[in-house]
């Protein structure tokens, strides 16, 4: 009885999870344990979770013994470049370490972050992958997460783009249509001096999947970092992107496009923290919301004291395709320096009825007229995506989204 009274929602969730098989140090384990012991699921009282409720996690039935082999080929986006296939959260059989890709461990890199979900990720980690770029060739690595079983998928990723190097990473989450998994990913990204790293994240999850991901980025001087995020489907998707710009003369680009329908809930929280002077950041998130879907956007830009000559731009635009969709958009600027150029904007509206009528009067059906307008609206984000395989994949998915 006492147990039930003191049991937290995390405790209940943990009864469904298998402890990680990866080698954790006792210290790391203890630290994660104690953080979880004093934590519970975030509630609306927690500002960062005001509009996103994760209680549904405890209604998932997670199967502990999910298959690690898959006779179907991976749904890859890139034709060339190296790939790592991760099936139901586990590295596919036959994957061996190669220069730049590490998936087997004697000891995991120590990274501690305050979120109880990171602690959960560590204790129940289903796979850990480290990607390293150490030359200027701009190699591409795609991580394909094939999820066809209702299970816990807890990837822990380390991406290092070393001094003067260039790299492209595609994080491709593919869930079977009715998949009801719990994805909980922690990703640690280091962009070295003069390095240039682009990450494209596709979240095409099953309709009942919960996907909580956090990316922690550190940028050194003269580096360029791009994060493109495409939450395309899923029951609940929450992305926390935190970028610390620690060195001067950096560029940071954050782009996002989302297509929500049914009862989908999508929440993108981004923070770019300009700690030093002479940097540029640009953020553009756009999406369409249909049916009873909900979108949450919270974009924070910090410009610290003495971080002069910062140019930071942020924009979030939403189109509601139904009367029952919801958008909560909150751009936030906190500026402590006086010689900066920053702007932010947020808009939520509907498709222009006049434009729909105009296109229909030329013979387009209402559906194709709307589809054309939505593609044009999201096109601005896709134009910012330099990788053509990724942008054409997302464009195809937008078309599919409308054909269903």
């Amino acid at each position, binding site marked *: 009885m006492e147990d039930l009274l003191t049991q937290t929602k995390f405790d209940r969730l943990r009864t469904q999870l298998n402890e990680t098989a990866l080698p954790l140090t006792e210290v790391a384990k203890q630290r994660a344990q104690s953080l979880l012991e004093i934590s519970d699921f975030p509630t609306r009282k927690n500002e960062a979770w005001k509009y996103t409720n994760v209680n549904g996690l405890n209604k998932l039935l997670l199967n502990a013994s999910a298959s690690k082999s898959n006779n179907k080929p991976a749904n890859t986006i890139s034709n060339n470049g190296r790939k790592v296939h991760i099936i139901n959260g586990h590295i596919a059989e036959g994957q061996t370490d190669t220069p730049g890709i590490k998936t087997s461990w004697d000891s995991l890199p120590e990274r501690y972050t305050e979120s109880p979900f990171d602690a959960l990720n560590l204790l129940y980690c289903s796979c850990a992958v480290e990607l390293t770029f150490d030359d200027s060739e701009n190699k591409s690595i795609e991580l394909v997460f094939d999820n066809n079983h209702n299970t816990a998928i807890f990837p822990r990723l380390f991406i290092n783009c070393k001094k003067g190097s260039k790299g492209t990473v595609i994080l491709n989450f593919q869930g079977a249509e009715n998949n009801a998994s719990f994805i909980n990913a922690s990703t640690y990204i280091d962009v070295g001096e003069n390095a240039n790293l682009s990450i494209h994240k596709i979240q095409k999850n099953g309709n009942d999947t919960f996907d909580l991901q956090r990316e922690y980025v550190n940028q050194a001087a003269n580096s360029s970092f791009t994060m493109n995020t495409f939450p395309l489907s899923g029951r609940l998707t929450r992305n926390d992107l935190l970028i610390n710009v620690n060195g001067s003369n950096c560029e940071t680009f954050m782009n996002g496009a989302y297509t929500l329908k049914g009862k989908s809930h999508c929440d993108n929280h981004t923070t770019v923290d300009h700690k030093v002077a002479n940097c540029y950041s640009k953020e553009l998130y756009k999406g369409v919301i249909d049916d009873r879907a909900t979108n949450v956007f919270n974009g924070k830009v910090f410009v610290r004291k003495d971080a002069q000559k910062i140019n930071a731009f942020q924009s979030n635009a939403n189109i509601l395709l139904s009367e029952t969709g919801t958008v909560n958009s909150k751009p936030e600027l906190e500026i402590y320096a006086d010689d900066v150029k920053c702007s932010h904007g947020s808009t939520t509206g509907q498709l222009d009825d006049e434009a729909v*009528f105009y*296109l*229909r*009067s*030329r*013979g*387009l*059906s209402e559906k194709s007229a709307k589809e054309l307008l939505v593609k*044009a*609206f999201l096109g601005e984000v896709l134009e910012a995506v330099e990788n053509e395989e990724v942008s054409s994949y997302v464009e195809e998915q937008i078309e599919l989204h409308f054909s269903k």
Partner: protein
Amino acid sequence: MIEIINLHANIEGKEILKGLTLTVKAGEVHAIMGPNGAGKSTLASILAGREEYEITSGEVTFEGADLLELSTEERAHLGLFLAFQYPVEIPGVSNVNFLRTAINEIREAKGEDSISAKEFMAMVREKSKIVELDSKLASRSVNEGFSGGEKKRNEIFQMAMLNPKLAVLDETDSGLDIDALRIVAKGVNTLKSADNASIVITHYQRLLDYIVPDFVHVLHDGKIVKTGNKELALELEEKGYDWIKEETQVG
């Protein structure tokens, strides 16, 4: 081609059309003139299928079909075209892309094969010449950043591409300088044939110097009150609309 019988229509409870009757046959050009507020643009909007109007009575038969029962796109599939008084700017949607989709949806509705890329591009080149529309404009976003004249030329370019049975030109002359007017009119005249027809809605006579109508109708207070030939347009230009109003009241 089209037969409008005793059409009555309201918007927000206010009656705008009060028994309009008009028949247009293939090969004909009809001008509809009239003072502001007579219902000219309402007629164009209703023909194109704008949903904010309520039809209280009357019939419209187009190519044998009950026009009022059809959706906007179905009317386009049957060959109705509206040149807008205020063409909409649609950022991010390329002019040629959307026209190709439109042509293909019209062809699909007729059970025809879709147009090949080669055939389509040849058509773009040919038709853009008719209205002297720069081919760069043809491939830009629909009307985005176009001047008033370019927008109207783009309307006629689209009309040329879609090759409608009946074109309704809603105040196409408004906001045009004389050169643009001449180009637009030349486009309309080039497209004229024995199989198609147009309804030219205008406030001023000046467009009719370039597009010569077979019939001129005066629309006043929701009805056609006078019908004549092109001489009627000249008479209206000279005397204004007041005598029509008075004549109607006396009658």
